Each structure stands twice: as structure tokens, then as C-alpha cells.
């Protein structure tokens, strides 16, 4: 049955900001869906609050609403579309993660879908509920004769106790309808139980938890399935978790295809999976089912199903080449699997099951270093912030590549010294508790004498995997012992996935470069195989490659010749982590699109399976490879032998590729755009200081210290507070604001790597300064200001964590002029060709330069969307020689003017960061401090765009946290220095009818200013204190600025963490309070409307064409 004739307008809901458990995989799936639906001639309207996504580019939908994904706003959108004459006929919510699914359910329950006659396609409500409601789901599973862990659903602590009385501890606690296992966990003791169950009840949107029998330590598997409306079902991929049950799949090292199942066991799993899928009744599309298998008896239980495209679906798509999201979208509009052709072979239909002749390994990326105090134990709640995937012809090869893709201090086994006191016993002990890098621990244990059985025993890893690692440990012995690395031994090492760097580490006698030279001399080079969905049974048309070492020098490589068009290699950004996320993938994808249009053959290198950049049709060629010098160089050589490489782009993928610039250039690779020397000028504090000096631009006084003595001397000169940090970091890692010598000493002591190579920078900290972010383009001569962003929080809160407004809302003409001239001076002084990001701090009318990043910034997509100019595309063109003038002529950039002088009536866009605090707990189960600082902690961001700041800010808050309150109680407690500034906003809130609660000190100030308020006890002042009040739900908003020094024990810590766990707005800066007031006013006025990006952009362009626009120089 071909496409449904009765559909002409489909609405797609995205997944909103990147948060733990819901990352850019849903940009990948949503983007594919939008593409497909439009190719099919349907009108697509899209709602997604995340500006950093490709799917929210205006080209990908007919009407793109960058609006909060809440039932209220989605309803506004449905209404707006209807009013515009395009009634929404169907809603596709199965490609936007849990957020989209939950919103769809809400819209059904509040009758909106019915009212507007919108049909849910993909999965209907009943199917969604049979799949998502854990109890209904268990009945489904039992009804097809399969098993589930015993369990009981509880809506109160009483019920919880009854359940546990029957099941016995340990039990798993799982709140219903949360994503990424939020609030779930394993309760071993009664006290665990109390804490987790009550938390779970609050975190579940339906206040319901499931208490479940533990199957801890069983093997965990996942199947990705697809079904069409004619009931054809295929299993796209099987995934085996190396970490046994008890560690969230998102936090587990996983392998595809399953490695340790016999056909009987696999087919049984497949039968159960298909039966469950049919019974749940997911009409069409993809779904993910998780299983647990008892290692000694093979007993199989079904854990859960996601009746939608999931993180694992993204992984499965990249692992097999089977584009699940794309096909799900086609199935949703009526096609059947056999009517869809498999893009990769171009001849065979999609009604088949991919078969792999390689092994795929996914390794999660964590960010515990960002959340001091957070419990790093891996549990049933997902904690990882990203992941890398690698393909190899064997498990060890894929594992080695995956480990070195992580960009952690260890880049594969043996690259860091063992802990001094490590012994087989100590490592075996450590293996019992799931933690990040447990495979490293396993290798150490084996190397130090533990047996495969022992390691499998304590870790729960299947012995087969342990033996694979044992083989590596054995190989290491040979590598160390060998008099010299001869060809056979070197080849074996490479086939086992060992990098040149690892070889150098085990062989004292060679550097990485030495190993590389030797390897090339001996002709030990990788070949490139193709991901073709069919183990070579049919010819593949899509050049989706991965490297592998085979056992002879003349092994077959599958890279095809292409000599007509020059090639451009784009280096991606690797696994998502805090400070380097989807924004960089966005820029890489834009480069690929722009350069393909400009006639180049684009070649993408990346290792992040969640992204759009690793879709096989984003670039002309895709290499799924680690972003290390070794792996990138081999790709470059492969591409050089198959054609001509015009250049390699390192500027768009963030710090990862940027860090390779110099070495690539030294190796004779044409690095296009800002040259490595210039990059160094900007990144090296000393040389950058010189650049500023020459341009006569002020910067905070600073010094570089390699010891505490030096640091103290500098601090004394420039005066406290000072900002200390290691040099060369992204996302402000290890940055602290230090108010006194003692704390300084502490910092230096903690900052282990203080050496002449890794000095510590000591800056004067600019208190109460306004931070300004600028993105600009420079072609070597002309400078184009992409946008000027005024931060709402003061400098000291990392640019990635603070909200900001574009155009700036409070900066004066003269300030803006200075920003422009300074940015131009820096761009020219550094010698930028492409994108430049500069951060300034404005204090006492002096504009200090904080830093310049000679690369695409986190804000590039936000600015592009707010100003209707594709900055990353322009940057890519500039890097390959186009001038800004040419791009203006082409129409890629506006004919005149730039983002620094937007039309007076331009809409205001507000960016708000989304923070993951509520995901982390201390080992005792307390929340972690939600205080913002110079260290970046946010995982993602949202954009609110509207006519004026108030509405835009309100939207950004609604999108990030849930709406600001319009009435109720606001609790105020601020540091002395803020008391004065706080009077005005708080008065306004009182006038708007809020009841003001305050701590005694604050209350006095407020009263004296005629603001009625109630005094509440501080948390340490005994019972009925503010924390109790918050936990009891008696507070709707909190304004709390930190007193005195930073650190987890700061006053107000309990207040803020309580706010986080209750999910109520908590403002920690004066400026934030003022912004909140404006937002609340807007909400009360109720003049918040929704407008598609296409309309906003058209208006902007129109205004730009306007006759009386001044030329800008």
C-alpha cells in the first residue's frame, strides 16, 4: 500500500534541549523525518525549542516553531497553523524522544488533538500507554507467554512497603514516564528504599513508581525492531551490553551485534520481541525492547520497551546503515517495508534484516569531574553526557577505537600509569562496583594476575568479553618483550585495535611518531571497509567507511576513486560532553551542505553516533573514525590516493579538531581557514596578550604560575578575587574564583598537573561585570559581526551556562561601537579566516577582552537562527577562499549591514542553558549544588524568540524548566551586596500580587522599602525552615544569591538543591531576577504568541532591504 492520500500536513515534535538521556540522537531522527515527509510533498510544521539542532533550520520544515515543547505552546502552534489556513492533520511524536511522546499524551488527554482533529500517527495513544505504562506493559508481555521481573506499581509509600515485603530487597525503583531512568535506582537497604521511592514518586509526572524484582547481574540485551501497517516486522539490530543488568544501557559499554547468544537463544528473543511489538500495537515505526538473560540458565525476561525511536535506534542506524528514523517516517505515512528501497544497496527493499561482518562498540562519556560530590557509581539512572561509537573487523579493534575516541585522559589501555598500589586483589574489588572505565580496571586486574573467571565473576561481564581483554594483556607481554617490532607482531597489534600511541607507551624505545614511521615503512596500513547492511552480499552505493587492519599488505580497500571534484575533509567534534555538544555538529553539517553546493566533494570524519554529521547522506563520504592524529592522517592518506584533497577543516568541530591543527599542518595537510599559527596566537595566553596590547585593548590583569609561590605573588599584585584555571581548556574545566590565599593554596594543591608545560593562569576576577559574547566572520580583511549577545548573568557565570539576549537589550551605542571595533581588531590581529568568537566583560565602562576562540562557537547556531544568517555555511566558504563581499553578492550574507546592527524592530532572542543538577546525587543521596560559576555545567540550551525581551525570556524559561509562576509565593534571600539591587524587582513582584517570603536580613531591607513580607527560618534555624517549606511545595519561585565564598558548603546550598529537586525556578543573580520579573509580567499580560522562524526571517530580511539602513564599516 503506497503513501496515504489523505495526509497533506504533518506536525513533528522535537525533543527540546540536550539533557542527559535525551541528546542529539533526536535531532538526527527528527531531521530525517522532516526531510522524508517533505520529499513526499507533505507540509511539515515543526516544534522544537532547541536552536542548536539541524532540524530547526528553516530549510527542513515549512513552518519551524522554535517554541517551548509544552502542551500550552504546542496547542498555540496548532491553532496558529489552522489560523494561517494550514490545519494540522497528523502529529508524528515518535521521533522526538520521551519529551515529544509525553507532550502528545498530554495533548490527547487535554482534548486538544480531538478539538483540532489531529490524528496521532506512528503509535496511537493506547499503544503508547501499553508500551510506556510499566504495568500495562508487563501484562502485555505475560499475555504473549513471556516473562517479566515480578513487580508492583505504587502510588504511595505504604504501597511501596507492602510491595517490598513481598519482593524482598534489593529492588529496582522506577518512576513511570521519566526518561533516561530519571529518579530510578536500586534500593539495597530500607533507608535507600525510603529515599529513592519518595523521590521517585515526586519525579514521576504521574506520581507513580514501579517496585521491581531485581535481576541484577543478568546479561542485558536490546533489539531494535520496525513494523509496518501490514504487520511486516524486521529486527534491525541486536545490541549486547557488556555491563550487566543494573547499569543503564545508556551508561553501559554496548556491542552490536550480540556476541554471546546461540541462534536458539537469539531467535527466542526475536520471537518474544516481535510478539510483544504486535501486542503493544505500535502501528508503524521503530521500537526498542530490552531483555535480561540469566547467564547460567538462559532464562529470559523482558525489561522494557520504548514505543518510539530511541537513543539505541540511533546507535543501531549508524551501526547497521539501516536508517530507522527515515524509514519510520515513511511507514507512518502509509508505506510498507517492501515498498521502500534500501538506500545503501539501491536495489534491495527495506524489508530485510541487516547482517554485519564487523563489530560495533559504543562507549559512554561521563562528566563527573564537573559535579564535585556527585556519586560516580553507575546505576539504573543514566548519568553519561555523550557517547562514541567505533567499528572494527573484530571486537578488540572496535573497542580500541572506541576507547581512544573518548578524549579522556586515558586514550586506550596502557596510556596512563597504573595507580601506584594497584594489585589483582584491589582491582577485583573495584570491579564489583560499576564505574566509568571499568574495562580499564578489568584489563589491569587481568594483567596483574587475576583469571578470566575471577574477573567475569566480580564484574558480571560475559567471560567471552573478558577473554578478549585477556588476549590484549597477553599481547602486551609480547610487545614489551620483543627485541624490536617486526611486521607480523606490529600487524597483530594493529589488528587488535592498538594505537601507535599505545604502542609507544608500552615500548619505551619509540615515540608515537616513531611507531608511525616504522608502521609505514613495514607497510602496516589500515584498509577501509564499507557499512553495507548485508555483509557484502550486494554492492553498496553509499561510501560509509571504517578502517580495519587485515593480515596482508595488499588487503582489499573499498575507497573508490574520485578525481573530478576537489575534496574537503571536515573533522567532527567526537562524543558529546559538557562544553562541546551538538552546536559543533551543527556547524560541521552546515559546512558539508554549503561546500557540496559549492562543488566540492565533502568527506566527514566523526565518531559520534547520535549526530546528523554521521548520517551517511549528510556528506559525500563518511568515515566513522576516532578523531586522533593517527586515525585522521590515515583517512587523509586514503582520500589523497583516491583523489585530490583541497583542504581539511578543523575549525567547526570545537576544541577536538582544533587541537590537531598544528600536527596536521606539520604533516603537510592543507589546513584551510585560520592557520595553525593564528590559532596559537589566540589560544596561547602570552601571544594573545601581545595581540591585545598591539591593538590597545584592555584585558584583565593576569599572570602564569607553575607553583603556589608564583601564584600567590601574582594574586597579591593584581588583588583578590582572582580566577584560576589550567591553560588550554574548553568549557572552563578546573576554573575557580578564589577570594583568598588559603583557597588559592588549596586549588594549586588540587590541580595536580601544574608543571611548566601545564601552567596555571591567574586572572583578576572582574566582579559585577556584564559579559558579552560575539560571533564574527573574517575573510582576512572584512569583518562581519554575526551577533552580539548580552549575558543576563554577570561575568563569572560561564558563557555556556548563562542566558543571553540578542540583540543586546541594555548596551549603549558607544559600548556596541567598542565591541565592534575591538572584535575587528582581534580578528585582524589574530589573522582569522572563518569564524571567531570573542568574550568580553564590561565593567565600569571599560570593555575587557576575556578570550577569543578562533573557531565556531557554541552560539553559532543560536546567532544564525536569531539573525537569519547561516554563519557556519559562510565560514566554510570563507575558509575555502570566498570573500565576505562575494558571499554578500551571492545572498548567503545580507547585502549590507550585519548582526551587530540589527533593524530596530528585529525580534529578541533569548538563549537559556539547561543544567543537569537533578540527575546527580551525592553518595548519601543529597542533591548537588546548583550554583553557577566559571566552570561550565550545562548540557544544552533552548531559545525563546519573540517581539520583546519579556516574552522571549518567559519562553526560554518555559522551554528550559517549565513556566515561570504568575502568582503564589516567592522566597527571597540575597547576599548583602545584592540587597539594594534586589529591592526593585522584588517590589514589582509584590505589586504583581506575589506573597514575599524572606530570611530575616533580607526581610529587614525589604520592609524598610515598604515591601510586605513574611520571615522564614533559615535551614539551620530549626524546624519549619525554608527548606522544609520548599520540599512541602510551599514556594513557587526562589531568588537566592550566594553569600561569601563559593564551594559546596556555601550558605543557601540546601535552598538551591531543594529548589532543584522540586523543579521550581531558582534565580541566583540580581540580573536574573530582573529578567524573571519581565518574563512574569509578559505572562500575566498574556501577549505571548508563536511565529514560525520562516516568517520572522522574512521580516528581518525585509527590514534589512529597507532604504534607510546605514552602511556599516
Amino acid at each position, binding site marked *: 500500500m503506497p503513501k496515504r492520500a489523505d495526509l497533506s500536513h504533518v506536525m513533528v515534535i522535537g525533543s527540546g534541549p540536550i539533557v542527559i538521556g535525551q541528546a542529539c540522537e533526536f535531532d538526527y531522527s527528527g531531521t530525517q523525518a522532516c526531510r522524508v515527509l517533505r520529499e513526499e510533498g507533505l507540509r511539515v510544521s515543526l516544534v522544537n525549542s532547541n536552536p542548536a539542532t539541524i532540524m530547526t533550520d528553516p530549510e527542513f520544515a515549512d513552518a519551524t516553531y522554535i517554541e517551548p515543547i509544552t502542551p500550552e505552546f504546542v496547542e498555540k502552534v496548532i491553532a496558529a497553523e489552522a489560523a494561517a489556513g494550514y490545519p494540522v492533520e497528523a502529529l508524528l511524536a515518535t521521533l522526538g524522544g520521551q519529551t515529544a511522546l509525553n507532550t502528545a499524551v498530554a495533548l490527547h488527554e487535554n482534548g486538544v488533538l480531538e478539538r483540532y482533529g489531529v490524528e496521532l500517527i506512528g503509535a496511537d495513544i493506547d499503544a503508547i500507554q501499553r508500551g510506556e505504562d510499566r504495568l500495562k506493559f508487563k501484562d502485555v508481555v505475560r499475555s504473549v507467554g513471556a516473562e517479566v521481573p515480578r513487580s508492583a506499581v505504587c502510588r504511595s509509600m505504604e504501597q511501596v512497603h507492602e510491595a517490598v515485603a513481598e519482593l524482598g530487597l534489593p529492588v529496582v525503583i522506577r518512576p513511570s514516564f521519566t526518561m533516561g531512568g530519571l529518579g530510578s535506582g536500586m534500593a539495597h537497604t530500607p533507608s535507600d528504599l525510603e529515599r529513592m521511592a519518595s523521590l521517585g514518586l515526586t519525579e514521576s509526572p504521574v506520581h507513580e513508581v514501579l517496585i521491581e524484582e531485581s535481576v541484577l547481574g543478568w546479561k542485558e540485551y536490546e533489539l531494535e525492531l520496525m513494523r509496518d501497517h501490514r504487520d*511486516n516486522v524486521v529486527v534491525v539490530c541486536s545490541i549486547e551490553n557488556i555491563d550487566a543488568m543494573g547499569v543503564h544501557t545508556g551508561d553501559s559499554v554496548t556491542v552490536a*551485534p550480540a556476541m554471546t*547468544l546461540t*541462534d536458539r537463544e537469539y531467535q527466542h528473543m526475536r520471537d518474544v520481541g516481535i510478539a510483544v511489538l504486535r501486542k503493544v500495537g505500535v502501528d508503524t515505526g521503530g521500537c526498542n525492547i530490552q531483555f535480561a538473560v540469566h547467564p547460567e540458565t538462559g532464562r529470559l525476561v523482558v525489561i522494557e520497551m520504548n514505543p518510539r525511536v530511541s537513543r539505541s535506534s540511533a546507535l543501531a542506524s549508524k551501526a547497521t546503515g539501516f536508517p530507522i528514523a527515515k524509514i519510520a517516517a515513511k511507514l507512518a505515512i502509509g508505506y510498507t517495508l517492501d515498498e521502500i528501497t534500501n538506500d545503501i544497496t539501491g536495489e*534491495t527493499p527495506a524489508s530485510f*534484516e541487516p547482517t554485519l561482518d564487523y563489530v560495533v562498540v559504543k562507549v559512554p562519556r561521563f562528566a563527573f569531574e564537573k559535579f564535585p560530590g556527585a556519586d560516580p557509581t553507575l546505576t539504573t539512572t543514566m548519568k553519561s553526557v555523550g557517547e562514541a561509537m567505533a567499528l572494527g573487523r573484530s571486537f578488540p579493534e572496535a573497542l580500541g577505537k572506541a576507547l581512544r575516541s573518548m578524549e579522556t585522559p586515558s586514550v586506550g589501555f596502557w596510556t596512563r600509569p597504573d595507580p601506584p598500589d594497584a594489585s589483582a586483589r584491589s582491582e577485583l574489588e573495584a570491579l564489583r562496583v560499576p564505574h566509568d572505565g571499568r574495562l580499564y580496571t578489568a584489563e589491569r586486574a587481568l594483567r596483574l594476575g587475576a583469571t*578470566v573467571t575471577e574477573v567475569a565473576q566480580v564484574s558480571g561481564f560475559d567471560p567471552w568479553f573478558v*577473554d578478549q581483554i585477556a588476549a590484549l594483556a597477553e599481547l602486551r607481554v609480547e610487545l614489551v618483550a620483543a627485541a624490536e617490532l617486526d611486521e607480523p607482531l606490529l600487524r597483530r597489534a594493529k589488528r587488535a585495535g592498538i594505537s601507535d600511541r599505545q604502542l609507544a607507551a608500552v615500548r619505551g624505545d619509540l615515540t608515537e611518531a616513531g611507531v608511525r614511521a616504522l608502521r609505514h615503512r613495514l607497510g602496516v596500513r589500515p584498509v577501509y571497509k564499507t557499512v553495507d547492511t548485508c*555483509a*557484502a552480499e550486494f554492492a553498496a552505493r553509499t561510501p560509509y567507511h571504517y578502517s580495519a587492519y587485515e593480515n596482508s599488505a595488499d588487503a582489499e580497500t573499498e575507497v573508490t576513486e574520485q578525481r573530478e571534484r576537489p575534496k574537503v575533509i571536515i573533522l567532527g567534534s567526537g562524543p558529546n560532553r559538557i562544553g562541546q555538544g551538538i552546536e559543533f555538529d551543527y556547524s560541521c553539517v552546515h559546512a558539508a551542505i554549503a561546500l557540496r553546493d559549492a562543488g566540492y566533494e565533502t568527506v566527514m570524519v566523526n565518531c559520534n553516533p547520535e549526530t546528523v554529521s554521521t548520517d551517511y547522506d549528510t556528506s559525500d563520504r563518511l568515515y566513522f573514525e576516532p578523531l586522533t592524529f593517527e586515525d585522521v592522517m590515515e583517512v587523509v592518506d586514503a582520500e589523497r590516493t583516491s583523489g585530490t584533497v583541497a583542504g581539511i577543516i578543523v575549525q567547526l568541530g570545537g576544541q577536538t579538531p582544533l587541537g590537531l591543527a598544528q600536527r596536521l599542518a606539520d604533516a603537510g595537510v592543507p589546513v584551510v581557514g585560520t592557520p595553525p599559527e593564528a590559532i596559537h596566537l589566540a589560544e596561547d595566553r602570552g601571544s594573545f596578550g601581545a595581540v591585545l596590547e598591539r591593538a590597545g585593548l584592555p584585558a584583565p590583569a593576569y599572570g602564569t604560575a607553575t607553583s603556589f609561590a608564583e601564584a600567590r605573588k601574582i594574586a597579591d599584585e593584581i588583588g583578590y578575587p582572582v580566577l584560576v584555571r589550567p591553560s588550554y581548556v574548553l568549557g572552563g574545566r578546573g576554573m575557580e574564583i578564589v577570594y583568598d590565599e588559603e583557597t588559592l593554596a588549596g586549588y594549586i594543591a588540587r590541580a595536580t598537573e601544574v608543571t611548566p608545560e601545564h601552567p596555571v593562569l591567574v586572572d583578576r576576577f572582574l566582579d559585577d561585570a556584564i559579559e558579552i559574547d560575539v560571533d564574527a566572520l573574517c575573510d582576512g580583511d572584512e569583518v562581519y559581526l554575526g551577533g552580539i549577545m548580552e549575558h543576563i548573568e554577570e561575568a563569572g557565570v560561564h558563557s555556556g551556562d548563562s542566558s543571553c539576549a540578542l540583540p543586546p537589550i541594555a548596551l549603549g551605542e558607544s559600548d556596541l561601537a567598542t565591541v565592534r571595533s575591538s572584535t575587528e581588531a582581534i580578528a585582524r590581529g589574530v589573522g582569522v579566516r572563518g569564524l571567531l568568537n570573542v568574550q568580553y566583560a564590561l565593567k565600569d565602562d571599560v570593555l575587557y577582552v576575556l578570550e577569543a576562540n578562533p573557531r565556531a562557537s557554541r552560539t553559532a547556531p543560536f546567532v544564525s537562527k536569531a539573525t537569519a544568517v547561516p554563519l557556519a555555511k559562510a565560514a566554510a566558504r570563507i575558509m575555502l577562499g570566498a570573500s565576505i563581499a562575494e558571499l554578500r553578492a551571492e545572498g548567503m550574507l545580507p547585502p549590507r549591514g550585519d548582526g551587530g546592527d540589527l533593524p530596530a524592530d528585529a525580534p529578541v532572542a533569548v538563549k537559556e542553558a539547561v543544567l543537569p543538577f537533578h540527575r546527580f546525587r551525592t553518595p548519601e543521596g543529597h542533591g548537588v549544588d546548583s550554583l553557577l560559576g566559571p566552570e561550565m555545567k550545562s548540557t544544552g540550551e533552548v531559545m525563546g524568540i519573540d517581539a520583546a525581551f519579556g516574552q522571549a525570556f518567559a519562553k526560554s524559561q518555559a522551554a528550559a524548566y517549565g513556566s515561570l509562576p504568575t502568582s503564589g509565593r516567592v522566597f527571597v534571600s540575597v547576599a548583602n551586596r545584592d540587597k539594594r539591587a534586589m529591592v526593585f524587582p522584588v517590589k514589582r513582584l509584590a505589586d504583581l500580587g506575589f506573597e514575599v517570603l524572606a530570611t530575616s536580613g533580607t526581610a529587614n531591607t525589604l520592609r524598610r522599602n515598604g515591601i510586605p513580607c513574611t520571615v522564614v527560618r533559615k535551614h539551620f534555624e530549626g524546624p519549619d525552615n525554608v527548606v522544609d517549606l520548599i520540599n512541602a511545595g510551599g514556594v513557587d519561585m526562589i531568588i537566592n544569591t550566594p553569600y561569601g565564598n563559593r564551594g559546596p558548603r556555601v550558605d543557601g546550598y540546601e535552598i538551591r538543591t531543594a529548589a532543584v529537586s522540586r523543579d521550581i525556578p531558582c534565580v541566583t543573580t540580581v540580573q536574573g531576577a530582573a529578567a524573571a520579573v519581565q518574563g512574569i509580567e509578559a505572562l500575566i499580560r498574556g501577549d505571548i504568541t508563536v511565529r514560525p522562524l520562516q516568517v520572522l526571517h522574512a521580516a528581518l530580511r525585509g527590514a534589512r532591504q529597507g532604504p534607510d539602513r546605514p552602511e556599516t564599516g
Partner: protein
Amino acid sequence: MLVLEDGTALTGESYGAVGQTLGEAVFATGMTGYQETLTDPSYRRQIVVQTAPHIGNTGWNDEDDESDRIWVAGYVVRDPARLASNWRSRRRLDEELTRQGVVGICGVDTRAVTRRLRERGSMRAGVFSGPALAGRAELLDRVLASPPMAGADLVGEVTVAQPYVVPAATPARFRVAALDLGIKSNTPRMLAARGIETHVLPATTTLEQLLALAPDGVFLSNGPGDPATADRAVELTRQVLTRGLPLFGICFGNQILGRALGRGTYKMRYGHRGLNIPVIEHATGRVAITSQNHGFAVDGEPGARFDSDFGAAVVSHSCPNDGTVEGLTCLDVPAFSVQYHPEAAAGPHDAATLFDRFCDLMAAGAPTPAGRDH
């Protein structure tokens, strides 16, 4: 060393028994089920190249054999397991290969070999290790001296010597005479589960011997070799059809029925050997993911009706990948067959209902319209 008919030679390490083996090199794309594959009689005289990179992970157990021995002539894998990990495993795969004297090779680039076989078609090949090793030219001569698969009559080599009975697992409803052309143990198992008492008979069985059992139906099994050589089985089938006895055939059996209905068979370029092969049932348009293992196929167009000595028949199933005939159904006599493996060991169970359809035929004892199942 692995040597292909076209001169390709790859070196690896010896795996399983040491020595020499000759046969037709074919690739199998299943990611699971190597034990079932190795013991499938249809692989007689074939050197199987496994595309899945890791082989042997779950070792060798005493339950999953599809016959009483390993039939493949040789085994080519990339990464053999050093350790067998599965609760049912009794020994390592390489131990079993050695025990049964199966010569294998590991460490070779199986993907490159597969691509070669895809482009040039299945070829004669040889695996040589230890004393059997010699110069390339010498080894190639040995390969070229070996008999080709086309025209090979291998049924005699795999069929049972003496008839045996597999009793019904549930109260017996039917008795089936199963002609063993290389039958897999899961077939009688599937029949037994449906209340069928299966008499497995040698390929040489005569019509009289067969009728003497007064069977409710006749089953034609899978098997190795070139169907063009199986005249005997074809003749027997024609007699069965004349008598209107319900008949069901799979794989080789499908080719036999095809020939009995007057169709020709041909050798495919590289055949279908995997667990992921889609088959469309034309009557319903539904797709089943099937387990397959055949290098020969019946002439015909997807969905085409044709006349035979036994009335009208149709090509009821075909493979959307390449249009190969995957099933035949007689419209005037109670007979049908499929080219794939509904008994699916190894492989997906999507097509198991075909056995029920066979039961329906025997219950009705009458002709069926195409595609009466599900």
C-alpha cells in the same frame, strides 16, 4: 592457505583439522547459528565462508546439531573464539572441528573473499594446511582438478541407509513419508510438534515402499547438489502427485516439485545463504524474513501462473532482492513447496506456519487455493 578457482590465494592460520579439503566455496551471512550451519547436510561438499567476524563464541553444545555430523567440506572464518561462553556449551568449536576432521582456516579477510564470490560467483576452492601445503600453482591445480557443483549428485552421499520413524510429540494426527535428500533434524521435530509421525525414508525409496506406509502426506526435504541430477526423486514426486497425495517440499524439495511440474532449474551466481532473506507471499503481499541455503533455483517469474501435467500452479513466493522463485503452489493437486527453510535452524521463525498449512492440506486431503496460510 585458501585457494580459489580463479587463482586468488589467501594465507591465514589453520583452524580445526590440519590437512587438505576441496569443495565449492560459498559464503553464509548468518550472524548466529554456526553449529546448525555446520551440521546442515545441504552444505555437503561446500567450503563455507562465514561473514560474521567472530565465530565459536558460544562453543559447541549437544542439542543444536541439525544432523549427526558436520557436513561442510571446509570452514573459513576470521576471528575464532579462544574461549566458549554459553551455559549450554560442552566444548570449543575448534575442538569439535578437529574431532570430526574438518579442515578450516582463520584470520583471512572473509569480506574480501565474499566480495570476490559475489562478483565472480561461487567457485571451487581448497583449504590447505600442514603437510598438504605446496606451491600456489600446485594447489591451484588440485582445486581445478576437483569436480564442480553443477551436475553433482550428492543426495546418495547424505541420505539415510535405513528408514527410521520420528514419533509425534502430541497425539498422532497424521503419518508423513519424508524423503531424505539431506533432511535436517529440526524438520521432523517441527512435524512431530504438530502431531505428525514422520517416517524418514532413503532417497532410493520406491513408490510401492512409500505407499506401503499408507501416509497422509509426503514431504520432500532439503539437500545438497544439483537438482538437475535428481531424476529419481522427480519421478517419485510425479507419481505422488498423480495419486493426489498431499505433498510439501522445502529447499531441494522445492526444486524437485518444480521439475515434477515441468520447470527447469539453474545454478545461481552465488546463491542465498543467510538468515535475513525477505520472501514475499504473493497471495497476501506479506513479507517473511527467512533462513535460506540454496545455490540452485527454479525457473519462473514472481507470481506467475503456469500449467503443468498436474493442472495449474503458481509461483506463490519470491525474493524481492532478486526475484528468485521461493515457493510453488499447485492449484489442482494438494501440493506446495518453498525454497527457504521454514524449520529455520538456524534462523528466524517467521515461516513456521507453513507446517500448519501442510497439516491443513492433509486434513482436507484436497487442493488448496494459493496462500491459504495465515
